[in-house]
């Protein structure tokens, strides 16, 4: 771990919204390139960085669309700069092909999606959490992805830094799945001094550049099977491609090479899923029902859990800060002991299905879903908790 570059860290207590806090998190994590395209409710992230970047050596460019924004940040990363883009549903859809390119090229970068109601143009100024499956599976082909989901401006700051750190640790794109509520909610955000912010440095190759093979994994780093990087201009004259490739980065069109590559790409995240867990648990031991939630739905769940406790129910709460990969081991441990799990999410059933698939009938798994546009009515969450307790 290294410490944050003080130039990007606005140490102090601030009264800012989730979008602005996300921008501050990115800058604190060392992001110095952002390409974006305006879309409500995410634009404030880019606006904040456009205003702050010129005095810290960062570059902002407003691209012609989100396809371009996503492509540009991959290029910028290979140029040697920590990079990010930010969007909402329609733009997220446009980014998907190049998300796959980032996965295939193993490009560490961050994509922020401030979710709004969908499908299509949907509810531009109102919240949703219905892009969660798109975050997991939105680009074609098999891959694993990492996604964090903040429930407050403070978490938007903290988890954006975590997202950058995970992207470097796993050499992978990482999503910050905000939503309109958190994005536009103004609260106190405390930004620590730079020397108290841990930043995962890029895994860099240290041998002679002419010997560099961009996808040669020799032991990886900290148990993660990734190869060290070099950037353009460092003398390696390397090649990288979205095609299935070997350790040299050269295309190899064989099932064997494909299997070898994919097993590593998927495995580097799947095999470390127990280390990528970030949950906050309350009263899980001895509970009959455990509520699972992420993002803004966590804030609604607080109320419903409190109401259920007042009614004498034994309820625990698991707030997921990282949704993908799912905290599978922990969920299974809990499922073995409770009557039911209640998943609170602002969609008509997305993450809950992964939980159901995982739990496979060991206990009840109920959805407290919601169409979006507003947050849930906590009473509806409460009734699901009661149903699970029966």
């Amino acid at each position, binding site marked *: 771990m290294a410490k944050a570059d003080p130039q990007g860290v606005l140490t102090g207590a601030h009264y800012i919204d989730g979008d602005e806090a996300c921008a501050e998190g990115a800058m604190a994590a060392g992001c110095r*390139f952002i390409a974006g395209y305006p879309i409500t409710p995410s634009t404030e992230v880019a606006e904040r960085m456009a205003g702050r970047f*010129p005095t810290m050596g960062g*570059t902002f460019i407003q*691209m012609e669309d989100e396809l*371009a924004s996503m*492509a*540009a940040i991959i290029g910028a990363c290979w140029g040697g700069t920590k990079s990010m883009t930010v969007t909402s549903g329609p733009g997220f859809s446009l980014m998907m092909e190049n998300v796959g390119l980032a996965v295939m090229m193993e490009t560490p970068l961050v994509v922020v999606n401030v979710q709004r109601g969908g499908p299509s143009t949907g509810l531009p100024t109102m919240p949703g959490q219905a892009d969660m499956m798109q975050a997991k599976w939105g680009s074609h082909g098999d891959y694993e992805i990492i996604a964090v989901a903040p429930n407050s401006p403070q978490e938007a700051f903290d988890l954006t830094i975590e997202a950058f750190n995970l992207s470097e640790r796993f050499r992978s794109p990482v999503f910050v799945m905000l939503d309109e509520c958190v994005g536009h909610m103004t609260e106190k955000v405390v930004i620590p001094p730079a020397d108290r912010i841990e930043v995962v440095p890029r895994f860099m190759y240290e041998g002679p550049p002419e010997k560099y093979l961009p996808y040669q994994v020799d032991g990886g780093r900290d148990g993660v099977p990734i190869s060290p990087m070099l950037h*353009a201009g460092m003398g390696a004259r390397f*090649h990288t491609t979205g095609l299935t490739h070997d350790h040299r980065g050269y295309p190899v069109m064989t099932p064997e090479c494909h299997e070898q590559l994919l097993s590593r790409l998927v495995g580097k995240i799947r095999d470390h899923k127990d280390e990528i867990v970030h949950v906050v648990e309350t009263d899980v031991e001895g509970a009959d029902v455990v509520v699972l939630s992420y993002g803004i739905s966590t804030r609604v769940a607080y109320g419903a859990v409190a109401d259920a406790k007042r009614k004498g129910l034994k309820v625990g709460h698991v707030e997921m800060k990282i949704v993908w990969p799912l905290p599978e081991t922990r969920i299974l441990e809990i499922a073995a002991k409770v009557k039911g799990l209640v998943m609170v999410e602002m969609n008509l059933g997305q993450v809950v299905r992964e939980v159901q698939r995982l739990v496979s009938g060991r206990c009840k798994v109920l959805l407290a879903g919601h169409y979006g546009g507003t947050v849930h009515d906590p009473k509806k969450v409460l009734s699901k908790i009661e149903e699970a307790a029966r």
Partner: protein
Amino acid sequence: MSDTVTKAPERLAEPIRAEDLPHPMEKWLRMDRIPHIWCPTCGLGTVVTALVEGIKEAQIEPDRLAVVSGIGCTGRVAGYMKFDSFHTTHGRALPFATGLRLSNPKMKVVVVSGDGDIFGIGGNHFIHAARRNMDLTVICVNNFIYAMTGGQVAPTTPGPANTSTTPFGAFEPPFNLPYLAESCGAVYVARWTSLDVRRMSHSIAKALLKPGFSLVEIIAPCSTLYARRNRLGSGLDLLKFYQQNAIIQNGAKTADVGIDFQRPFIVGEFVDAERPTWEELMRKQMKSVLGEKFIPHEGGECSSCE
């Protein structure tokens, strides 16, 4: 930088075998990827040669140049060039290159891709990169067709050429690429056929050294699909046609250089203009408002600024 010097073999008595000689371009090509996938008589091989010659002529350090391609037969160029090279997604080479360049302004970034890639699916990126005068050089290989996918109509196909998706003849009006580039703001625009290796490499050198957005369009026959479907003879016949029908007219008005099906057409250097680049404009603006507080991107000043 000097050309690779071919040493005389020590045992002069024995005949010189070609395979014992170093390949004249091995310093610039990924020899471990040769043979390439392109068809015999495809124009792409000469484009690669011209690109290498252009880079040599411009005396650009190989470590300071990146090649970015999209997808297609032309999109494979990046994979054969011994530079930092990126084979990206269909149509997105330009925004990828934009990010690369802005993140690492010491690099010269050249985009090599096909007509369908840059002007079909990637057309929006082209017009904006030209408008911004982003410091990039685009080499577009125009073979009038989507070759890699089997010869479908492209936004450059002159009617009434036959393609696999216009079996009764193409009828949409094609783009005039130099005219489009100039009107969007490109500062250097030239067109040659793949036969004009020397003029082509000279233009590539000029484009690389010119700060700002440049386009070199290369008319390069797709012998396998375009020629065969349109009964234009062998790849060699097609080259002969271009030799006889390409009229050199430097400084021609780009509005007049559209290409019709199997008719004489104009090649040459069409645009060589001065306009500040995106990076120059950005720095000027930031300095004028922020003064000393402005901190340029790490990597410092751009390669084309003094």
